[in-house]
């Protein structure tokens, strides 16, 4: 009888985990809609006149940051695999590596802003197509910050030794979100490249 009750309760817990992961998917759809709105805003604005448009080449720094974020996705995936195989030391190491790469990405993006503004492509600009570059990258960085919080939470969970079910679940969500942020950046980068 008790086993039976536990069995049904486990099933309810599993359903709840599945639902929470689904929440993340929905959240990512919401976030994507925000960037879709910015993209369509950019297109409508830029079509408004010949004097509009990015009118500059994107800094090379973006190439490096793209490489960095792809690499961080790889380390994140490896950390997730390590967590599933209960290789906890490896998991911690790879998580820390992902975090460092994440901060590196952040720093390069900010450096790229410096490059842009030294060319006169500043945020406060009467050609708002150029302001849009900052909005896209800035909003993405805000999401990267959220991603870093999620990573730290997974790391803290590992260090404080939450049970393995929660550990793998946290890692699963963190990996999914981190990959999403990488793909989102690639979308933004390609979108801007096509319009530069």
């Amino acid at each position, binding site marked *: 009888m008790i086993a039976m009750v*536990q069995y*049904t*309760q*486990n099933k*309810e*817990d599993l*359903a*709840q985990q*599945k*639902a*929470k992961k*689904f*929440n993340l998917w*929905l*959240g990512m*759809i*919401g*976030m994507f*809609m*925000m*960037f*879709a*709105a*910015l993209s*369509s*805003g950019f297109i*409508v*604005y830029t079509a*408004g*006149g010949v*004097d*509009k448009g990015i009118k500059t080449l994107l800094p090379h720094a973006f190439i490096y940051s793209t490489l960095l974020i792809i690499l961080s996705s790889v380390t994140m995936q490896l950390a997730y695999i390590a967590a599933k195989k209960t290789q906890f030391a490896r998991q911690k190491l790879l998580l820390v590596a992902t975090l460092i790469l994440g901060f590196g990405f952040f720093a390069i993006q900010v450096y790229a802003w410096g490059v842009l503004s030294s060319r006169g492509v500043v*945020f*406060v*600009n*009467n*050609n*708002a197509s150029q*302001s849009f570059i900052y*909005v896209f990258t800035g*909003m993405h960085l805000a999401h990267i910050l959220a991603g870093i919080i999620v990573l730290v939470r997974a790391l803290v969970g590992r260090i404080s030794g939450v*049970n*393995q*079910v*929660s550990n793998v679940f946290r890692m699963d969500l963190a990996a999914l979100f981190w990959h999403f942020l990488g793909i989102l950046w690639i979308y933004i980068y390609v979108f801007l490249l096509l319009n530069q």
Partner: protein
Amino acid sequence: MSNIASADTHSLDHHDGHGHHHESFWTKYVFSQDHKMIAKQFLITGIIMAVFAMVLSILFRLQLAWPDKSFPILELFLGSKWAEGGRINPEFFLALVTIHGTIMVFFVLTAGLSGTFSNLLIPYQLGARDMASPFMNMLSYWFFFAACVVMISSFFVESGPASAGWTIYPPLSAVPKAISGSGLGMTLWLTSMVMFIISQVLGGTNYISTILNMRTKGMDLWKMPLTIWAFFLTAIVGLLSFPVLVSAVVLLIFDRSFGTSFYLSDLVIQGQILPNEGGSPILFQHLFWFLGHPEVYIVLMPALGLTSEVISTNSRKPIFGYHAMVYSLVGITVLSFIVWGHHMFVTGMNPFLGGVFMITTLIIAVPSAVKSFNYLATLWRGNIRFTPAMLFAIGMVSFFISGGLTGLYVGNSALDINLHDTYFVVAHFHLVMGSASIFGMLCGVYHWYPKMFGRMMDEKLGYLHFWLTFVGAYFVFFPMHFMGIDGVPRRYYAFTEFPFMEKWVSVNIFITWSAIIAGLGQLAFLWNFFTSMRFGKVAPQNPWGSNTLEWTTPVKHIHGNWPGEIPTVYRWPYDYSKPGHDEDFIPQTVPFSETMSSNLPHDFEGNPEAERIQREWELANKPLPEKETE
């Protein structure tokens, strides 16, 4: 091995005996993660905001009816800054209409309606212990609460609340120097709205995820009550459209506070040329209405869902055209995203594009008409019980039709040139979106009050409330159609000062008196709502003879909703007055094997085994008289 053990302990502390959790006052009533408590929090906050916004509307109605008269009492309450000499000043008038619209659309009819009933009914009607993420659900309420506080706090700042209309079009909203309301008040408005959107997205993802993942055994999508379908599609619309408003608002914030030029161009204020160049205010309108139009369906669809349920229950008849009801909701959901341009016909839009938006807009009449006819067909020859909830549901159908019809006029790009920004539009959306949705919400409150508070509301006060509100709403909004056709513009402070509109003073007085009386009618509701919590008749478990799952839970709320196992669902929720059954309702939890005398061939969805058993039973129990006639 350790894996399994840890999973077990986890589930044990998680569900350690439903019902006797150690809860302090704070975790039970304030930072509650229980969907039932969160629903009540949303409802009561929504009611407070509704009363606040209603008082604002009475204030600006006073100004419209008696533009030359002074009301010293106003100066007493509002101070000499906003009501000098007892007359509402023009800037405050604009703030009143702006905040009235904002609160009613977002805080009452979006959060108050969806927040309350999605939270209450999704776990209850689907047979779930709680939402997918109770923590996110709690966050959703507290972001909403913070948004309310910030919005109301804008009345207490020096420069007054936002005044650029609830649509906050730039450049008026983007240039702090333009009007006093575009100063700090506008900043607070934007802050509040960002928190509000976070709240909606958190709540909405939870609703969708719970509906798709946490239905009890047997509850397939086509056995869900229409309420759930409506909440589901509403949440999808919200999830896809609210983030767009975030983008629009973020760009507006940059324009306001950082000096960018997304929306601003060629502006001269008080003889000074602003530095902003090259922006496009129309861009804001596109982004705003990409949310703004779906938003009106976010407001309306939960009302459609609630009333479908209540009308079917109280007609003691299955809902007419269940599948058609669902598909029409789906149709409205899809169409709601491709009609936003009909708000912008007069912005210099390409007439061809205007034509496209006009056609998509008019197509919405099809699913809307399907719903209206299905409501009427459900009522037709039903065994109707006129409970207060039922009256409000029928009232919703009435407003949905009378307000929806004028949508054909304002949705027409040629006619809209005349009607745009007149009282005709005000009449249209107050009937079809405002009154219809608030009636849906009140219908839900009366119907599910026993579930929320374990007691019944007083019926007599309910009837009084219904008739005052129903007649009042028509008296207020119906005359506005004629004003609009005559060209009276909305949002004007004292339009009756213009000679050609002078004649509307008498109508304005009539409308204001109607509004005051309907407003006083709400006291009947408030009294009823708050005293019944304590002194109402104790509710039975299933007071309305309903089929849905929430009425199988105990009257006293427990954590996890059902003691013991969650019930299994065997049938759709609308088996009312089924021929051959001894009662006029069969709850969803009753298997077909217990209702052999009323089963119909299509109940078995082509399951040959079940059909065979049913045939054998029918042969064995063939009524005797039939044999004699052979």
